[in-house]
Structure formats: C-alpha cells, structure tokens
C-alpha cells in the first residue's frame, strides 16, 4: 500500500507553498480591486495584503534565505531548491508589489478623491493655511520626538529597526562651518533670535542629542556583537560545507596579507572616499512610530490628509543646522524575524523568548523598500549599509508601507464607503444574555458560529465559572489573546475566588510573544497555575475545561473551538465552537491538560484526536477509509475546509483516494500545494478559496463513510507544522442537529458564487463563472441566517414574560 502511495509523491503533482501563498495574497488584492466592495473596505484589503507580505518576508523568505546561506540543498515537495524558490518568489513579489501600488494609485486614490478625501502627496501642494498648520504640528508634536543620526567615520550607521519607516538624507556642509560635525552637535556661532520657541526647541534638541549619543554607544556595541555573531555563523556554515566561499572581507584580508601592494591601493582608495565624504554627509532619521502616520488637515471642501514622513522630509533642514539637505527619501527595511529557539538549552522559556525578542530587532535585512527615484548615491549607501542585493531592493511608486491604509480606514465619517451588508454578531438562541450557561449546556451540546453569532458566551462561560461556587477548577489554553482580554480578567478573578486555575499560555505564538509574556506574568500574580506547553511543540489547540461539583458528582464542561480565545478577532474570523458536558469528551479534555502539563500520554482517548501523536494517523485513516469504501463499490465523499493544505502525507492520500474515485471537495482559504485535474490523479478533486469580508478560519472535515457520515472540527490545518509540531485537537460533532448545521456551512460555501475563487489545473485561481447562477455570498447568507435564528428565538421568550410566576416550591 505504501508503494502505491509512492507514485503520488511525484513533484510535478505539487505546487510550491510560497508561490501558492502569493496566489492567496493576490486573491486578497483582488478584493481590493473589486468594485463590488465599498471603497473603504478596499483600502482595508490592500492594507491586509501589505501586512501579509511583510510577514511573508520576515518569516518565509527569510527562512529560505537562511537555507540558501547554509547551503541547504534539499528540494521541496514541488521539486524546487531553496535558491530556485527564492528567485521565483522575489521575482513574483516584485510583480505583486507593482500590482499593489497600481491598485493604490489608479483605483483607490482617484476613488477617494471623488468621494471627498484627498491624500496630499507633497508639502508643496498644501494651501498656505495648511502649510502653517503643518509647520505648527511639526514644531510642537514631531520635532521633540525625532532622533536624527548622522553617519561618518566615528558614527556607524545606526540600527534601523524592523519595518520602521525612515528617511535618509544626503547633506552638504554649509560654507564656513565646522568640519565633519553635523550642525546639531555644534554651538551656533552667533546667537540666534532667542525667542521662547527656539529655547524650547533647543532644550528638546539637547535631550534628543543626549539620547542619540547614548544610543550610538549602545548600538555600536550591538553592531560589534552582531558582526561577531555573523562571523561565527559564517564560520559554522563553512565548517558544514567546506566548499562554500569565504566571506568577501576575510578573503580580501587574506589577499592583502599576501600582497604588500594591496595595502597601498587600499589607502589610496580610502583617501578618495574621504574626499567624497567630506563633500557629502549621510544622515538618517526614523519616522516616529508613536505619532500617527497620517495627519488630517483642517477642514476645507474636501477632507485632506498628509503623510508624516512628508512633513518631516520638508522640515529636514531644521534638524541639520549648518548643513544643506541635498535630497531626502523615505526607506523601510524588513528583517529576518523567524524565531527559532532551542528549547532544550533554554531552561526558562520565558526568559529565552524575551531574549529572542530583543534579537528580533537585529535580524538581517531581507527587503529594502525605497521611494522610486531615490538619489543613486543614497541608494548605494543604503544598499551597502544593509548589505542587500539588488533584487531585494523594491523601488516604490507611492507611500511606503501600505498598512497606513488601515489608519485611513479608521478616519471618522465616510459611512457610505463602509461595508454594512453584514450583520453584527447575533445572540445565540440557546445562550440568551443572562442565562446560566452550565444549565444550558446540560440541556444538550451548544454550537456557535462566529462572527455571525456572538463570542460573548465564551467569555461568559469563563466569567460565570469564576463566580460559581460549585466550580472547582478551570483549565484553558491561550494562544493569541486580545489586549485587555476579558477572559484573562475572568481567569484571574477565578483564581482570586479560590478556584484552581490552570492556564496554558503559548509563548511561541508568532509576533505575539511580548503580549503573551505580559499575560503570563499577570496570571501568575493572580495565583493561576501557568504552564508554558511542551518543549518543541506549539500549543495551538483551543480548549477550555470547567470542573464543577454537582449534586450527582463531578461534571465537566468543555468548550472546543477552531479559533483563538480572542474576543477581538472573533468579530472578524469565521470560526465554530462547541460547548458540551459529555462525559467522554470531558475525560479527554482532562487527559489533554494532563499531557500539556508534562504528564505521560493518557491510557486512552475517547473521542478527541490530538496532534502531534495521533491526529495525522486519524486523518489518514479517515481518508483511506473513504478510498476503501469506494473500492468496495460505495460512494465516497470527502469535504474539508481549512486555511492551508500542504502536508505531503495527507495530499498523497487524497490523490490516492481521488484516483480510486472518491469525490473530494476542498475549501482552502490560503496555501494549497495540491493540484487539481491531473489525469488519473486528481480529477475528482475540486478546490475553492473564499476570501471575503471575514477571514475564513474554521476547519471542518466531513467524511461520507458509506452513508454514516462523520463530521469533525479542529484547530489544525492539513499542514506539517500543525500535524507534526503542534498540539492540536480534532473533535467530532456528534449531535445530529449540530452536525446538520456544520454540513450546511460546507454546503453554502461550496455554493458561493461571489467570494469564491476556483483553483484551475494550471495553478491559478479564477472567480466563479456566475452565468446562470444566483449570487450567493456565503458570509452574507450566514449573517442573515444568524439574524433570523436570533429573531425567531426572541419571540417565544417575549411571550414567556407573561406567564404568571409561581411561588417557589419548598425544597
């Protein structure tokens, strides 16, 4: 059987995952270009594509770069080496970013203007009133927080932090001023007009100077360390692969040592360099992140905004007294941020992550974005300073870092440009406000579909448990929690009320570590038993267990979900959740927490399947079972919805099942390495992706099982990282009515004609051909259904108010 599967592992049957991911970002971009969407929503989509891409650079491209640097030769599932992937992706991202800016410049900007919002690109285009407003703003708000840095022999290029926006300037010395010292460090020769304002300015500047000097000292140290680390890394890489070329600098030094002449040449060259440097001086200043990126100008006919970097650029000469600013351009650098921690060496994970976070600022540069038309001298200078190769430089026609569009989206007003066709989260009929959740759960399993239905009951579940005198213990996994999370507050409260609270805080949630450490500490202070998961495995499962002592014994209430315990994202991500007090699931929940606390695997599982030990086998079993059913002449059908599909074992099993005749319908939002329509391999597989108003996030799995269908939900995608390196939970949907609802979700999404994109055999995605079909936007359908359901539930409850109250029975 294994041999049979082998034939489905041919690289030509697979798509590279990074290229597939870029396809996904293209689908997001297509929503930004989709005229059916309100204009402001399109801004949001474009912003999302940009922040997605940032992360993609910091993590995926960076790790490919690491592989290339380390001389890693292994090919991916699609048969590409790291180098090949990197080349293909860099090329693709150049095209992609061009599309992003084309959309911004040619679709969104004109659209905004038509709707009465001007994005002013240059200070020069401001009216005189606006100019004085902006000048005032600069002096009062911006100037005090700026830290200009000059670069020369004694002052190395400062550390520019990841994703920050900066302005680089080329300066020349004004005649008759001190040599090589930037103006801001000099005492003015003649007293300037001593207005109050300038005195204040000076004071602020002095503070700034002090900071700058201190920072420089610190950073010089950091740079040294970094250089040392880099050298060691290079050495390590060389030891692994003796054929790798030596770093240029060392090679050169070696050469210089041998040939006496080399030294002279070098001196001569340096001399020339110095001359040029005498003429020009480089400086850089960070656009402060503490200030809003866009400034709204005083009301005129149209509402108008201007970029912070444009304001700074215009006032740059006030930072460099005695110097002329020849030119100045914004730039932005994206660094390697893939967080890898050796947990075996890290005795205290918490401390280790704090350390890594500091290091993250100093990852090497993976992308340099500069404004189109940047002075070649400046560009050369930056290229050298960040040691990036040409293909990693992106010249941008427009404002750098499009995530500012989210800020634009946040402007008040413009209601007619926002989405209002999607209803707000609705009340869940089984869980009306003020109900006793435990009582409701005892009445039968409760299903929740977010964000169509409110997430509040999940918060209430923990909050009620915290106050309920019968509750003994609460256990919960927390992966990404929102700021000011009410769940965290409830957990802390529970601990204060003497409940035994065990919280698994996953510190390794990408880009969220800082947040998580704060929560972890806070919960510990409140008296919670905080655990940090298992070494080497991210805890991605979402599960809450409440142990309650009732008259007839201990009863366990469990909440299982596909989405995080984050009340903010629960308004944007589509997820499903289940509340139950079934004994078998309760037992499994207890076992799961025992395992997460570091105890041995339980003697058995009743209903749940956990990654990394059992989940993949479970999925493979379920897929193979469909295949076997078909081979026995039954009908075979697999339907699965997830965020990404790239696990090789699962995909080859799917191919085998498809080849046997199992119909396979997949709803994969993001990466999909599987190809459709390969003759004899994947002709029975259909893949669609839904990119809509909400982020599709639930994972649902349906297996026909020869007429005895089984429905599951999980926290895991079909990705190696989910199945092999994370703690994930698959839970069955056993209640018949709930199973119907879950199957209905799949039905409607399969019928979506508005937000669905269909994967074609050539690997591209196309929108659904709507000819002869109804317009079905699955997300809107779910909204409407949730509204209807809530309204229907409302009615009988209203009537019940009139039922006369009976005197309380004697107990």
């Amino acid at each position, binding site marked *: 059987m294994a041999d049979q599967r082998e034939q489905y592992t041919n690289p030509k049957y697979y798509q590279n995952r990074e290229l597939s991911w870029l396809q996904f970002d293209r689908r997001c971009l297509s929503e930004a270009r989709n005229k059916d969407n309100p204009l402001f929503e399109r801004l949001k989509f474009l912003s999302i594509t940009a922040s997605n891409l940032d992360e993609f650079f910091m993590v995926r491209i960076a790790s490919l770069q690491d592989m290339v640097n380390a001389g890693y030769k292994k090919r991916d599932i699609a048969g590409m080496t790291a180098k090949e992937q990197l080349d293909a992706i860099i090329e693709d991202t150049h095209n992609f970013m061009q599309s992003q800016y084309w959309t911004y410049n040619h679709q969104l900007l004109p659209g905004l203007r038509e709707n009465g919002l001007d994005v002013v690109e240059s200070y020069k285009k401001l009216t005189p009133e606006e100019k004085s407003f902006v000048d005032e703003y600069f002096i009062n708000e911006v100037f005090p927080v700026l830290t200009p840095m000059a670069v020369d022999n004694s002052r190395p290029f400062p550390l520019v932090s990841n994703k920050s926006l900066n302005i680089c300037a080329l300066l020349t010395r004004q005649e008759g001023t001190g040599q090589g010292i930037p103006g801001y460090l000099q005492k003015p020769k003649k007293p300037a007009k001593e207005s109050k304002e300038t005195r204040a300015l000076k004071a602020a500047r002095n503070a700034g100077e002090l900071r700058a000097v201190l920072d420089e000292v610190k950073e010089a140290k950091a740079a040294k360390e970094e250089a040392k680390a880099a050298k060691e890394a290079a050495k390590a890489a060389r030891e692994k692969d003796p054929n790798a070329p030596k770093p240029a600098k060392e090679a050169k030094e070696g050469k210089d040592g041998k040939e006496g002449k080399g030294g002279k040449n070098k001196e001569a060259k340096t001399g020339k360099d110095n001359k040029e440097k005498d003429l020009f001086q480089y400086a850089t200043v960070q656009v402060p992140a503490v200030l809003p990126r866009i400034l709204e100008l005083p009301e005129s006919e149209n509402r108008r905004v201007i970029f912070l970097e444009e304001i700074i650029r215009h006032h740059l000469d006030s930072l460099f007294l005695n110097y002329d600013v020849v030119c100045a351009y914004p730039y932005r650098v994206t660094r390697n941020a893939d967080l890898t921690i050796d947990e075996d060496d890290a005795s205290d994970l918490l401390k280790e992550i704090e350390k890594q976070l500091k290091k993250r600022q100093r990852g090497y540069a993976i992308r340099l974005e500069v404004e189109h038309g940047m002075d070649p001298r400046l560009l050369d200078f930056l290229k050298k300073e960040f040691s990036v190769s040409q293909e990693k430089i992106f010249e941008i026609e427009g404002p750098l870092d499009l995530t500012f569009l989210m800020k634009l989206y946040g402007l008040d007003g413009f209601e007619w440009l926002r989405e209002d066709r999607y209803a707000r989260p609705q009340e869940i009929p089984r869980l009306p406000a003020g109900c006793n959740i435990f009582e409701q759960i005892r009445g039968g399993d409760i299903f929740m579909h977010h964000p169509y239905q409110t997430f509040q009951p999940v918060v209430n579940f923990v909050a009620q448990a915290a106050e309920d005198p019968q509750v003994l213990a609460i256990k919960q996994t927390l992966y990404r929690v929102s700021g000011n999370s009410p769940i965290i507050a409830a957990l802390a409260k529970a601990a204060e009320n003497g409940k035994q609270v065990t919280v698994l805080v996953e510190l390794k949630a990408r880009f969220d570590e800082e947040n998580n450490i704060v929560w972890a500490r806070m919960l510990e202070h409140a008296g919670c038993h905080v655990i940090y998961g298992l070494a080497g495995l991210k805890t991605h499962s979402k599960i809450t267990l409440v142990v309650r*002592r009732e008259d007839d*014994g*201990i009863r366990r209430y469990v909440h299982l979900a596909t989405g995080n315990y984050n009340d903010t994202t629960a308004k944007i991500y589509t997820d499903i959740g289940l509340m139950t007090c079934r004994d078998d699931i309760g037992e499994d929940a207890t076992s799961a927490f*025992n395992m997460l606390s570091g105890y*041995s695997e339980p*003697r058995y599982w*009743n209903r749940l399947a956990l990654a990394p030990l059992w989940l993949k*086998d*479970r999925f493979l*079993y379920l897929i193979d079972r469909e295949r076997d059913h078909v081979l026995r002449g039954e009908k075979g059908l697999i339907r699965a919805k997830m965020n990404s599909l790239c696990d090789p074992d699962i995909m080859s099993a799917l191919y085998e099942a498809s080849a046997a005749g199992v119909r396979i319908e997949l709803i994969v939002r993001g990466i999909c390495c599987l190809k459709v329509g390969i003759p004899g391999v994947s002709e029975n597989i259909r893949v669609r992706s839904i990119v809509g108003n909400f982020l599709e996030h639930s994972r649902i799995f349906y297996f026909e099982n020869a007429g005895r269908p089984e429905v599951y939900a999980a926290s895991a995608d079909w990705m190696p990282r989910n199945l092999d390196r994370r703690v994930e939970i698959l839970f069955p949907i056993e209640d018949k009515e709930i199973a119907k609802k879950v199957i209905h979700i799949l039905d409607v999404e399969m019928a979506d004609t508005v937000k669905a994109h269909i994967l074609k055999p050539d690997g591209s995605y196309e929108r659904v051909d709507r000819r002869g079909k109804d317009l079905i936007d699955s997300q809107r359908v779910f909204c409407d259904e949730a509204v209807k359901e809530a309204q229907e539930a409302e009615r009988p409850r209203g009537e019940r108010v009139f039922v006369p109250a009976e005197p309380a029975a004697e107990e």
Partner: protein
Amino acid sequence: MANLFGAIDVGSHEMELKVFELSKKNGIRQIDDVIHLIDLGSDTYNDGKISVVHVAEIKRILLDFKRIMDGYGVTNCQAYATSAFRDMENATVVLRQIEQETGIHVEILANSEQRFLDYKSIASKGEEFNRVIQKGTMIVDVGGGSIQISLFAKDRLVLTQNMLLGILRLNELLGRIGAGSHKTRELVEEMVNSQLHVFERLYLQNMKIKNVIVVDDYISEVVRKNKVSFQTRMTDTLEKTKQNGEFISVRDFRHFMAAMERYNRTELAQRLGIEDDNVPLLRISAIMMRCIADRVNAELFWFPCVTLCDGIVYEFAEKRRYLKAPHDFEQDILACARQIGRRYRSSEERANTIARIALKIFDSTRKFHGMSAREKLLLEIASTLYDCGKYISMTNFSECSYNIIKSTEIIGISKIEQEIVACVVRFNHERYSYQKLIAEQSPLGEEQCMTIARLTAILRVANALDRSHRQKFDDLQIRIQDRKMFILVETGEDISLEKGLFSQRADFFEEVFGIRPVIKQKKG
C-alpha cells in the same frame, strides 16, 4: 454527595494518580488519571538506594498530585509504593522525608498485598469479573522480576503461586545468553514450560482452566491502545484485536502473534503505537501467554487493562461500603488458606471445628479484647493452618508449622500479618513468651505481640475444646458472667479429656483477657 478519593501508586517505572468519585448510587467512577514516568527500578539495581535526584522528583510530582487532588476537592487519599521501594535500603528515611514535605503518607506494599490489590483492581471491573471467574480461571499477573499465577474455581480464589519468570528478568537472561531474536521464542518457551510443568504437576492437578486473565504492562498496552485510541494503521489481523476489545480468543491471539512476527522492531512499534524499547518485552510477554494458554488449554484471554490504583480505590470503596455487591475477598484468602491446609493434609473437618469455636469465642469476648475484623480473619487463617506442620514432623510440628506458614504465600495478607499467623500457630503448642517474641521477631512491635498473645489464647482454648479430635463441641454457647466465660456444651459425649486438659489453657486465657473460661456440660 459523592466522596472524592485519590489513589497514588509509586511504581518502579511510573508514578500514577487516579482520582475517583465514590457514591452509593454510582459506585466508583474514575475522574482523572495522571501518569509520570520515573525509572526507580534502575536505582534498585544500581546501588539499592533511591537516588537524590529521584527523591526530589518524587516530591515534586507528589506535590503536583496533591494540587490536582485539591482541584477536585479530594478528601481521602491512599498512596502505595511497590517493588522498587520494597527493595530499597533507604526507603524508610526517604518516605519519612516525603511525608514531611508533601504531607502524603506513602506505604510500602508487600508482594502478596500488591498482588492482592491487583486482584481487587480486576474485581473493580465488576460484572465482567464475576462473569469470567464463573468458569475455571487463571490470573497471570506479570511483573518485572516474577509472575504470580492464581487460580479461581467456582468464583473462589483457590491458589496462588509466585514464579521467577518476570519479563525484565527473562529479557536480561536472554541478553546474557546472547540469543538472537529468532532464538527468543524457543528459549522463552523452554524456560516458561519447565516451571509450568512443575506448577501443573503440583498444584493444577485436574482443574479445568477456560479463561486467562492477564495483568501486564505490554500486551495490555497494545490491547488498550488499539481498542479505543486512534492508532488505526494495522493489518487486518491486528485489527481483529481491536474489534473484540479486551477479550481475545486464544485462537485470535495466535494470529496476532503470527502477524507480529512479520514485522521488525521499529515497524511493530509504529504499528502498535508503543515504545520501540518495549517491543522485545512485548514479544516475551506474548510468547509466555501463549505457552500458558497452550499448557492449560485455555480458550479466552481477558486483558482488563487496570492498574494498581483501581485496586486501591476498590479497597477503599469496600471499606466504606460504596459497593453494592463486592467480591468477598476474605473468602478468597480463607480459600487460599484451606488450599494450603489441604496440601499439607491437615484435617479439614477438624480445622473447621476449631475455627468455628475460635470465632465464637472471638465474637463473645469482643468487649475484652477490642480486636477488629481483620484480626478475626487472621484467627480464622491460623485455625485453618493450626497443625499443617504435622505433615513434616509429628513431634516438632509447631516449629514446622511456623516455617511452612512463613514460607508460603498467602495472598491478601501483609508480611507482618503472615508473621502473626505463623506465631499464633506456633504458640498454640509452644509456651508463649513475650521476651522470646520481642527478641526473635524484630519486625513485630508491641501491638503485634499483643495481638499474637490474644489470638493464641483464643486458639488454645478452641483447640483444647476439641482435644479428642472428634468434634464433640459442634454446638456450644458462650456466656460471660462475673469475669468468667462459661462455655456451655450440649453433648451426651464424655468430655473429661477436654476438661482435664483445659485448666492450663484457661490460665493463659485469663492472663491475657482477665476472664477465666469455664466448661459447662449440659447433657442433651
């Protein structure tokens, strides 16, 4: 309201906590099961002491167990340590330390007590257990160093025997011989068969065995995992074991073994979802089970997949009367004692008479001795075995009885209790001496010596009343009045022999209880 109970087992390779909920209505319900792997066994092998590192680990885990128990509002907790601790030199010191720091008192179980709890754990399976033992049943309790084979006939435990065929021991032996894996089968079969042969000849005789109940760590793990877990990639044959759950016919078991032979160690570990290191042990275990089943022509295996903790809670539930119809283990202990008596050809009839009289005296004088049901059980065992030494020597039989009882395993009683029974039998005939007891029997404390004295006094009187071995005192009544115990015998027979020899026994009884036994005959 239900009672919550924590059972802790500090074993030689793992520590386990099970939390149970006990109620009259629902009996025993398991709430939580926490397992922590810890290799205490190798400490024993290395230098006979528990290492400092392990002591610290035990404390840490026990503290966490305590936290977990608190989380459920556990009110009672029983912790036992087994073989690893039993053989440790520094066990007492360590346990004292542990108790001081964790507040958990850990008791060390004797082999027979541990085995007894294992039976209780099987009994905790309730109806299934009762159903299985209706037919001739053998329990094979497989440990690392030895195995314990026990026989059930008509739902009574009748015999138990320890054999040095523990899995780790066999594995080590095979390693020393340097046998390749293909030789494993032959060698294991040979070793097992030679011992089984003796067992069969001496103990099994004509008993028919239909069922074999297996308590082990390896096959049970496979059965358990493949029954309910999601380990599903198995061959069809292996699949079958899954279908039938914990019960496997001997025929299917043979298929299972044949299937096992087709895979190498790594493949097997993967397919069965067990540790690679455990595969050789699984093989040995399986070969041994097949040998046993073949030898006795058994038809069905049962793997109840229980642990010591299940036995611990069963014991507690029994004591607190949470069980509706518990299996009567005292009867098993007595059945075992009777079986020993039979082996040494004691007169069963006589033993029964003496026991009946002794128990009657015990019950009537409760106010004076204050002993519990447990001591009563010991008295009954002692009465049953009161003259087993005669099998060896008619003259020196008290010494011989003592030695027989001391070296025979009586399931369900502790080492100390065994010592008590042996002494009671011995002093039934020998002069009782406190000094001698204290001097010779260092493990016995003052309290135990008192128990011996009390039980001896009762047994002696009972024995004296049946001096002629003709069961003249079938029907007797006891009345206590004015510090005298009147033994009213309704018999037409001549009891002058008994009366004549009685006074010496009566002296000792009076010395111990402060009341004097007096025989009164009422001719019927």
